[in-house]
């Protein structure tokens, strides 16, 4: 069974704030849920399925209670920042199987205003891997991604200038987004001159830290037909876990090598059909490796691929992250998968900022990454199209 054409994204909402010191996480979940449902023309009473990550509370129970949802299908799959891309895929599967009609997916978190829980959502005993990896001064996610970047540079000759091009492209888009956390246009030199955090990654190779959240509503074709709102059709989805392989980990690739082909196959489209991509951009190296692994360029050539404005909308060869991405716009709850889906839907609706709207955008790809490419990670690829795609 394929999910192609069996589900539609009818509503999206990105929280406009980037610093939220005075609200609970549950309140932000409810705000983004209300926003996405209003966007679709639906109400809370229409929702029969709910999807959230492991930080939302006691699985899906807390927010179902908070929002008064009446649910017959739930999923709290936790794969870090890729969770919400997974959730859209799982929602489409559930809708295709007749389990539900209106699936709500939400994300919220306040890493800027309040310390987030530790790894694994801050619950339970530390896992055995953490006992062996928590001793060496790993300072947040950046250290693991830096380990990957060093190895990628060693094997393929990737340079810091090439990494910086990713930030530059994101910033060229963020300047048009009034809600973006960083709206200044960066140059390669500025990125290279920013403080080194974990070599070879500079401060400006890193995403922003922002409060906030987002939501999407996935519905059945029957529900979508009755709405006065343009939906994005779900065409294909793939997901994968890549881990440390019993200590034989290879940091030069990501789980996208598995999730990407599965999504393309289900969608029945080729790379040439993709008009726009949302690529998870926790760090600049994340984008380089993911573009290679999704097959947009040869393995090891990602650094060269992003030169000459490849990623810059609207006229680059492969416009990406037109909201400014996690690198400049928003990385709510330290998790960028939700905003990746949201901007792809904006593009398919023709509702991205006019300066970065890709002309005739009919097929878009959103890719989420969770955990760390420096150890164990989730990857999820979602391909969507316009209603008649």
């Amino acid at each position, binding site marked *: 069974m394929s999910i192609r054409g069996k589900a539609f994204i009818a509503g999206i909402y990105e929280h406009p704030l980037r610093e939220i010191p005075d609200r609970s996480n549950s309140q932000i979940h409810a705000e983004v849920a209300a926003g996405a449902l209003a966007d679709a023309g639906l109400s809370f009473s229409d929702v029969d399925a709910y999807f959230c990550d492991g930080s939302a509370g006691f699985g899906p129970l807390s927010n179902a209670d908070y929002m008064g949802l009446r649910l017959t299908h739930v999923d709290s799959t936790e794969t870090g920042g890729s969770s919400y891309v997974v959730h859209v895929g799982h929602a489409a599967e559930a809708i295709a199987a007749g389990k539900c009609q209106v699936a709500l997916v939400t994300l919220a978190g306040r890493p800027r205003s309040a310390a987030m829980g530790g790894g694994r959502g801050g619950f339970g*005993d*530390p896992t*055995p*891997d953490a*006992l*062996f*990896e*928590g*001793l*060496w*001064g*790993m*300072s*947040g996610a950046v*250290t693991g991604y*830096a*380990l*990957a*970047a*060093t*190895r990628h540079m*060693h094997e393929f000759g990737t340079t810091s200038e090439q990494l910086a091009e990713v930030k530059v492209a994101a910033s060229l888009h963020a300047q048009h987004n009034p809600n973006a956390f960083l709206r200044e246009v960066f140059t390669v030199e500025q990125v290279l001159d920013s*403080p*080194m*955090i*974990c*070599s*070879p*990654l500079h*401060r400006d190779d890193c995403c922003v830290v922002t409060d906030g959240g987002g939501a999407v509503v996935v519905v059945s074709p029957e529900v979508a037909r009755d709405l006065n709102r343009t939906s994005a059709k779900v065409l294909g989805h793939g997901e994968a876990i890549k881990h*440390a392989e*019993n*200590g*034989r*980990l290879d*940091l030069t690739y990501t789980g996208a090598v598995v999730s990407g082909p599965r999504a393309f196959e289900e969608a029945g489209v080729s790379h040439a059909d993709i008009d726009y991509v949302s690529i998870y951009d926790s760090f600049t190296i994340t984008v380089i490796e993911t573009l290679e692994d999704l097959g947009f360029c040869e393995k090891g050539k990602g650094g060269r691929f992003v030169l000459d404005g490849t990623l810059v909308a609207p006229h680059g060869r492969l416009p990406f992250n037109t909201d400014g991405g996690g690198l400049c716009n928003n990385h709510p709850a330290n998790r960028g998968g939700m905003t990746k889906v949201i901007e792809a839907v904006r593009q398919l609706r023709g509702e991205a900022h006019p300066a970065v709207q890709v002309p005739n955008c009919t097929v878009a790809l959103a890719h989420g990454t969770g955990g760390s490419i420096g*150890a164990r990670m989730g990857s999820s690829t979602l391909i969507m199209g316009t209603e008649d795609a």
Partner: protein
Amino acid sequence: MSSTLPNPVPAVSPGSEEFWAATAEGKLLLRHCDDCGTPIWYPRPFCPACGSLNTSWFEASGRGTVYTFTVVHRSGVPGYRDALPYVVAYVELAEGPRVMTNIVDCDPDQVTVGMPVRVVFHDTGQGNALYRFQPDPSAGADR
């Protein structure tokens, strides 16, 4: 510099008691599978290569090469944040596994991918020691 790295006390969990006890005697133990022979990392009484529950300890050579590394210039980790810059690395042991660790006794700017290293142990004062790696001149490779 690396000589001032903190020595956080590892949380010893079921399945790793012998590993940490051996570090106090300057031994780096690895687990391997008694059925398929694969060395296992991180240590666990289970073979992720073949699914066997028959595993046992053996002493590793303590030698390896740097698979990848990063020089940490900004850190929020207690103890480590006072020891900047320091090196976090994956060392590929001669037995195969790539192990997260620190490179010490070396200017961070001198660390390279492929550099031969050997294990050193830093006492935590709590009956065990941290396995870190220093340049291995006896390997005779160019650095």
